[in-house]
């Protein structure tokens, strides 16, 4: 990677940036889920590793969250953009060199930010915890170059129209810059009180709604038609999805603070808009599932489709929860409980991770021109992720319902802690399975690069038979 930082543009092979982003994202995924597993162990067994400030739960919890969001998920997005955007425009990435630099600064900036966060250098705002100079690095060094590269690649495309995936890529890379800038403005301008609390959750909501959800969906809009060979079921429904994300998904931020003393009109407005996120959700899921018509055997036989469609199916419970749990009728019961933790993992580890994993699997094979090393290991990875996640989600949902009951009947809190204990152990088991699955994935992708069978020119990875 380093040798290309100062190389001439024409000496950098096409796809380099995407490959670096791909492997970086897998490594961050291993780190992030490893931290998650360690943290979960501490919640189950509080005397596991004590006496060290640096290994305490309070110092590592936010490192896990941001390593996964900015390391794994966002880097996998960057990887997908670096190879899907040019592929859909029938062109090359606008600047491979900018992409390589982007990846380099991303890894350095994120490592520095997480290191400081680990030491306790925090702004004290959930999801936007990093101190302001790291936010500046994220905005100017990470998100802006990505946006420029994606936009210029779309602009220099050699096709007449722009495919659905690229609308989302273009719009999301632009919107996430706005979201980061506005969301961190409490720190740039020293905003205080409820304004700051609201902006904190405005950021947390919109980074999900205008970055993670639409980009993950956009990836599957590419992977499913590409691998199955079926055209996308409907571009009109794609339009509906895109516009309803922009209009509805960008507005319900206040529903994260339903029990806080925010103005009531704001909470009511957010709650109604929150139900309307079902519009893009239903459009997305139905469009993708209908695209699968006649090719459902690939859900079993092909690893990319297996990951993608599992992720798409998980969008159903995700959005059913997301649409309704924020209404006053339900929110009073489950707010601030493990139910929400389960829901957040359904969004990031369930829905979105499965879609990105497919893109990374497929993209690395395409760019390296090598067939996946082992289908067996990939299936192992899939099932470890799915079973581990499900264990996590079910146990945290139950724990959340217990907490909710404890909350409304106002039982002594320690009784809730005692009742939750078995589910905390289950959560740790599930999280550890995800971590172990990812270690296997890293090995599998490393071996793919080393000894994977070369893919002949003019062939696509999924057209070759698996060998192991």
């Amino acid at each position: 990677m380093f040798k290309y930082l100062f190389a001439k543009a024409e000496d950098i092979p096409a796809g380099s940036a995407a490959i670096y982003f791909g492997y970086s994202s897998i490594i961050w995924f291993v780190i992030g889920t490893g931290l998650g597993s360690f943290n979960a162990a501490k919640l189950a067994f509080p005397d596991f590793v004590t006496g060290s400030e640096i290994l305490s739960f309070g110092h590592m919890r936010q490192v896990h969250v941001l390593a996964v969001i900015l390391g794994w998920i966002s880097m996998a997005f960057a990887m997908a953009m670096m190879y899907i955007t040019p592929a859909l425009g029938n062109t090359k990435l606008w600047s491979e060199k900018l992409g390589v630099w982007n990846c380099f600064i991303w890894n350095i900036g994120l490592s520095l930010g997480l290191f400081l966060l680990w030491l306790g250098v925090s702004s004290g705002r959930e999801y936007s915890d990093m101190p302001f100079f790291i936010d500046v690095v994220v905005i100017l060094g990470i998100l802006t170059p990505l946006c420029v590269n994606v936009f210029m690649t779309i602009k220099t495309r050699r096709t007449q129209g722009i495919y659905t995936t690229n609308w989302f890529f273009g719009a999301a890379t632009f919107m996430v810059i706005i979201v980061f800038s506005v969301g961190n403005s409490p720190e740039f301008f020293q905003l205080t009180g409820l304004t700051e609390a609201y902006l904190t959750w405005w950021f947390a909501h919109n980074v999900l709604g205008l970055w993670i959800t639409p980009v993950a969906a956009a990836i599957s809009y590419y992977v499913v038609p590409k691998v199955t060979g079926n055209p996308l079921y409907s571009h009109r429904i794609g339009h509906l999805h895109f516009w309803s994300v922009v209009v509805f998904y960008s507005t319900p931020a206040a529903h994260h603070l339903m029990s806080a003393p925010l103005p009531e009109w704001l909470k009511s407005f957010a709650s109604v808009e929150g139900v309307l996120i079902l519009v893009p959700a239903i459009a997305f899921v139905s469009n993708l599932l209908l695209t699968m018509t006649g090719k459902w055997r690939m859900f079993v036989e092909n690893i990319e489709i297996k990951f993608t469609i599992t992720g798409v199916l998980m969008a159903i419970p995700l959005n059913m929860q997301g649409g309704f749990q924020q209404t006053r009728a339900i929110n009073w019961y489950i707010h601030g409980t493990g139910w929400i933790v389960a829901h957040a993992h359904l969004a990031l580890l369930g829905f979105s991770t499965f879609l990105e994993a497919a893109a990374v699997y497929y993209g690395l094979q395409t760019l390296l021109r090598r067939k996946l090393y082992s289908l067996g290991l990939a299936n192992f990875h899939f099932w470890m992720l799915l079973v581990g996640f499900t264990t996590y989600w079910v146990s945290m949902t139950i724990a959340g319902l217990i907490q909710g009951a404890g909350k409304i009947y106002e039982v002594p809190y320690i009784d809730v802690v005692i009742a939750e204990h078995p589910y905390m152990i289950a959560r740790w088991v599930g999280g550890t399975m995800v971590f172990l699955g990812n270690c296997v994935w890293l090995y599998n992708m490393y071996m793919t690069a080393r000894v994977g069978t070369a893919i002949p020119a003019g062939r696509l990875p999924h057209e070759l038979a698996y060998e192991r």
Partner: protein
Amino acid sequence: MAFREYKIGSRMFGLAFGTSMFITLYMPAVDIQNVSATSIAMDRQLSFGRVGGFSYEDPFLQGWAKPITVQINQDPKTGATIESTRAFVYEKGVPFPNGIRHPRILGKVPAAASESKGRINEASEDQGAVFIVREEVDGGVMVPYIENATATRGWLPSATLAKASESQRLHVGKGKIMFVREGCWWCHTLLPEQTQDWQYFGAPPMLGDFNGESPTAFGSDRKAPDLTHVGSRNSSREWMMMHFFNPRLVQSHSIMPRYDYLWGEKDANGNTIDYDGWRAAYTAYADGKSIYPPEVPVPAADSEARALIDFVLNLK
């Protein structure tokens, strides 16, 4: 190929996204800006100081340059006995909270009262200042305001500190830094919910209770009791001390981490704390080999543990 075929789409996108930002950013900001600070908001920001997270004066969250909250019974200038008064001492160079730096954060009426009656605009960070929260009936309405006692009564920060004994000083500002740095708010919320929680965790906050405070550290994932009014439920310093050192000493089912490392090297008597010895003795107690747990060392006056206990006990 230019974007010309997408001109309408781009404009519609700008319109949709812009409208959405107008409704979710501009309108709430204008609405929240018109909220007047309550006396609770003034007390909170004056005891916490300017920022409770990363800042220039305290980049590594060590609790540097934070105010000290004192309870005094004597007038620092004249020495006369006065009714017990809670004052916020900002020594030279300690940054003032946001309500003093930008009084409009307090809302129109309290800001005007703080400037005319409280003379907060005369306070200077280079000199330091002592503040008090006051309330006065104005036209039938109770108006809270901040008084700059250095200007109105001649209370100098050093003289005010001297009137407070060690137990009358609360390092609340430093304690809030510890609360944020150690991630207490990942499990303990600071926000009783409006729909329930009244009986167990106390009254939820009002709209104007946070003006000027940063960060509010509400927390989102309650794995432990809400702490907004914890000082009213449990005011025992002894209990807090044992609970922070090892929560299992006072609550055998607790899953809270041990915060013994906040004690530092020496205890209140200047003796080196023998952590290994303590742990061995505690393990023997936990295994049923000894009847009593080892004594918890009293934290030193300048330790991080003491500041965190001050902060928690101050949450009334």
